[in-house]
């Protein structure tokens, strides 16, 4: 691969980076909120069943099929086409984003559930006995501890989601992988172009890894510092 071709390709692929980041960040945000909701639901028996069913469905089926179901499947229903939501479901962007959010929520809710289970019972009792209301206990004690416990597993989910955005290229979205596919069909230089695309994802995952390592040290310094 000539340096010239490499630079041109990179420049063309990086044009898709804003969309990749946009989809990645928004789906992590939306998925995170939904995951928190799914865990709060688990306090009641029916809520727990609904949350478990949700996780089973969206973790158990391929993301690619979820994307197709939302993009092609919803349009087959007349009531969707005639509803106020149609302007959204007509757009590949919103369909892709929705699929990513729903999928991410299933995984994130399981990661968060693990974190919540690791919160020491005694820490919660101490908070309750100090006179805190439940929302305060949640905000000041349960979630901060659960988040710290969940962080290592969550960093994998972040990387996984950034890579998963590649799948929306199948519904015409021109993020990094979408642009790479288009370039390949123009130039037939598949290996070089896909390697360039992979390099972009690798760089992103390196940033995420470094950032979470930094955050872990910042949030749980007692696990890293020695005794003072």
């Amino acid at each position, binding site marked *: 691969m000539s340096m010239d071709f490499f630079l041109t390709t990179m420049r063309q692929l990086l044009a898709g980076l804003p969309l990749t980041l946009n989809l990645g960040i928004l789906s992590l945000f939306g998925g995170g909120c939904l995951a928190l909701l799914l865990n709060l639901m688990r306090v009641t028996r029916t809520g727990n069943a609904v949350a478990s069913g949700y996780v089973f469905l969206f973790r158990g089926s391929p993301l690619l099929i979820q994307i197709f179901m939302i993009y092609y499947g919803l349009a087959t229903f007349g009531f969707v086409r005639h509803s106020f939501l149609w302007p959204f479901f007509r757009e590949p962007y919103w369909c892709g984003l929705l699929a990513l959010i729903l999928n991410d929520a299933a995984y994130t809710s399981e990661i968060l559930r693990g974190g919540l289970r690791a919160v020491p019972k005694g820490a919660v009792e101490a*908070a309750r006995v100090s006179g805190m209301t439940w929302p305060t206990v949640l905000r*000041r004690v349960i979630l901060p501890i659960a988040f710290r416990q969940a962080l290592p597993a969550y960093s994998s989910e972040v990387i996984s989601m950034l890579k998963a955005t590649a799948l929306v290229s199948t519904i015409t979205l021109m993020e990094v992988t979408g642009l790479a596919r288009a370039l390949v069909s123009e130039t037939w230089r598949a290996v070089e172009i896909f390697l360039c695309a992979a390099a972009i994802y690798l760089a992103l995952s390196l940033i995420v890894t470094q950032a979470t390592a930094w955050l872990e040290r910042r949030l749980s310094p007692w696990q890293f510092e020695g005794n003072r």
Partner: protein
Amino acid sequence: MQPAISVKNLRKRFGDNEVLRGIDMAAQDGEVITLIGASGSGKSTLLRSIPFLEIPDSGSITVGDDHLAPTGGHLSRREEVVARRMRGHLGFVFQGFNLWPHRTVLENVIEAPIHVQKRPRAECIEEAVALLDKVGLSEKRDAWPAHLSGGQQQRVAIARALAQRPRAILFDEPTSALDPELVGEVLKVIRALAEDGRTMVIVTHEMGFAREVSSRTIFLNQGIIEEEGTPDQVFGNPVSDRCRAFVSGHFDRNR
């Protein structure tokens, strides 16, 4: 003057096991009450019922001006509000310390004053520093709980309880989870609180300490108060056979 804590006809069962079978107890301001008894006698459940960490099946609890008589083993939303107010007037020290691992020593102590009592931060910090000094840990204010010994963690927990400015402090076997060489430093702090005239209810297996520090000792057996009186009475000249057997067994073991 009404008592700081008053418990009337308290009953609690876990499944088939009736743990508390009608307990009446009151702690006047300035009193130090020790609760002793074999494991399973109900003393921890009784202590945990006072701030409603266990919710009694029947009976009533009064802390200061607040009074609750829950039925059916749960609290209604309105009762929960009263229970929270009662908890705010009590400090609680757990067997396992239960410090918040993600907060430093100082942050543990100022948490409830700031986020429950809504007092100004600067004032809370000033008071917390004084309390840490009192339990001998002022140089550890920025340390993490995970870096402290059990005895130090328990002393922080005592400072945390004091920071709420409680009317009474409840201790649930405060030295049972400690290595033997660390028991003394915690008992010393509790002894100092007794000398300050703090109102305390202490569940303990440290009989020598109980005898020395309490103004009144209660011996629980199978969910009822079997013997009650001054420590000299309960330890020196108990009326009930079971109490005599329990007390002499303990002192023999320690000898």
